[in-house]
């Protein structure tokens, strides 16, 4: 295919109209660990696998789900270091918005600004696109919201979505299980079951991470003990 001749330069379109570097970035996302998000009627839950390369790694030091503001959290699939950079930039943008308007940044605005950053890196010289897709979960005056942001900079609002290795199975599972009037607790159970579907090995509070936000508008990451409680309920 003539495309491969255009695959090295980010800023050159291929004859088929694609930016091949972005396609490759999506492949990097697709080979990352599974993560998913579900929007319930009264909150949002995001979850991810936390498979560490060796049992010697101190799993308490790894936190894949990060808060961006008190009412917005984010999880990723893909390259961890790229995620760290985006989280840092997004947090700063949220603070700048607050300094300027004295209003907590709405979820859509933060998603838009983060997506703009990701798009910049697809149109500049000497840089590569971010190798992550983000799932942003937030609760503001417009209610609970879940957004997915891709390396190209495009973003979508989802009722439920998954990314990473097991994406097709996970999405099929979610399509079957999702209902519009789900409560937050049901959503957490569904999230755990979806992760369990493609999970290699024994699932426990130590090798998955779950973040929730409810009507209290306070995003928090569940402790391993809380996850184990939910797991026990699901069994």
């Amino acid at each position: 295919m003539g495309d491969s001749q255009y695959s090295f330069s980010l800023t050159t379109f291929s004859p088929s109209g694609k930016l091949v570097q972005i396609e490759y970035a999506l492949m990097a996302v697709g080979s990352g660990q599974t993560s998913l998000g579900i929007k319930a009627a009264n909150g949002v839950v995001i979850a991810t696998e936390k498979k560490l390369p060796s049992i010697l790694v101190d799993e308490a030091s790894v936190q894949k789900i990060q808060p961006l503001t008190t009412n917005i959290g984010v999880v990723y699939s893909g390259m961890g270091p790229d995620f760290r950079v985006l989280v840092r930039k997004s947090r700063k943008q949220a603070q700048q918005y607050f300094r300027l308007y004295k209003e907590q940044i709405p979820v859509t605005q933060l998603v838009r600004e983060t997506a703009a950053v990701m798009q910049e890196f697809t149109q500049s010289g000497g840089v590569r696109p971010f190798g992550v897709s983000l799932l942003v979960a937030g609760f503001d005056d417009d209610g609970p919201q879940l957004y997915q942001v891709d390396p190209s900079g495009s973003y979508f609002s989802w009722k439920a979505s998954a990314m990473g290795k097991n994406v097709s199975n996970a999405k099929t599972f979610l399509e079957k299980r999702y209902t519009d009037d789900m409560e937050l607790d049901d959503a957490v159970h569904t999230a755990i079951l979806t992760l369990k579907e493609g999970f290699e090995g024994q699932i426990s509070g130590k090798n998955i991470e779950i973040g929730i936000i409810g009507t209290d508008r306070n995003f928090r990451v569940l402790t391993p003990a809380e996850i184990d409680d939910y797991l026990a309920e699901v069994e």
Partner: protein
Amino acid sequence: MSKAVVDLPPKGGFSFDLCRRNEMLISKGVHPPSFRKTGTTIVGLVFKDGVILGADTRATEGPIVCDKNCEKIHYIAPNIYCCGAGTAADTEAVTDMVSSQLQLHRYHTGRESRVITALTLLKSHLFSYQGYVSAALVLGGVDITGPHLHTIYPHGSTDTLPFATMGSGSLAAMAVFESKFREGLTREEGIELVCEAICSGIFNDLGSGSNVDVCVITKGHKEYLRNHQMPNPRTYVSSKGYTFPKGLTEVLTTKITPLKEKVEVIEGNDAMEE
């Protein structure tokens, strides 16, 4: 002969370019607009379990009280508060800025903010503006290393003290502290002493007045007591209201200026048509 003037790139901090022009304007009699000062009494003290901050609530614009109940105790972090004296805009802006920076720092480190961090951020900012940011602050909070109380002067110097006062009423308040402060006060005693010091400023200093705000910070807990004491209530309010019947005001002179008559445009018959 080569020109001795070199164009330097703009550096951070205060730009003194317009100072000469300002001095020239003043010499010609053009005065800069006055700004709203807080002309204040602010105090802080360390007690047994933490820190208590206190402030009055009067904001002045020269001789006029422009805000009878303003808030001078500013939020910096969940465990750190800051009282501000001096120019109101400066204290607001500088405390908001440092509060935002500390929030980012908390996200990045995953830890509670320390008072010394807020102190360093504030003093470096004030120093780089060489005293032109007219903010005199009393910063207090409780962090992992214990309770802390600091004062910060507009030029950027700081003091660490067990009890402190700033503002135009600082001498009145300090007199109270110097005679009654002791180590290891309880919460009630501490609040009473702070209120006494602020009241001393309210009643003896013209730049301070109205009510007393108090903020108590202990390990893991804070209490913002807005208008904890209101020693200056409006004593007489007429329940009947006031009426001003017509004819009560004496007319001294009358001058009537007729408005210009509207100009009537008479439609010319096809004036423009050739």
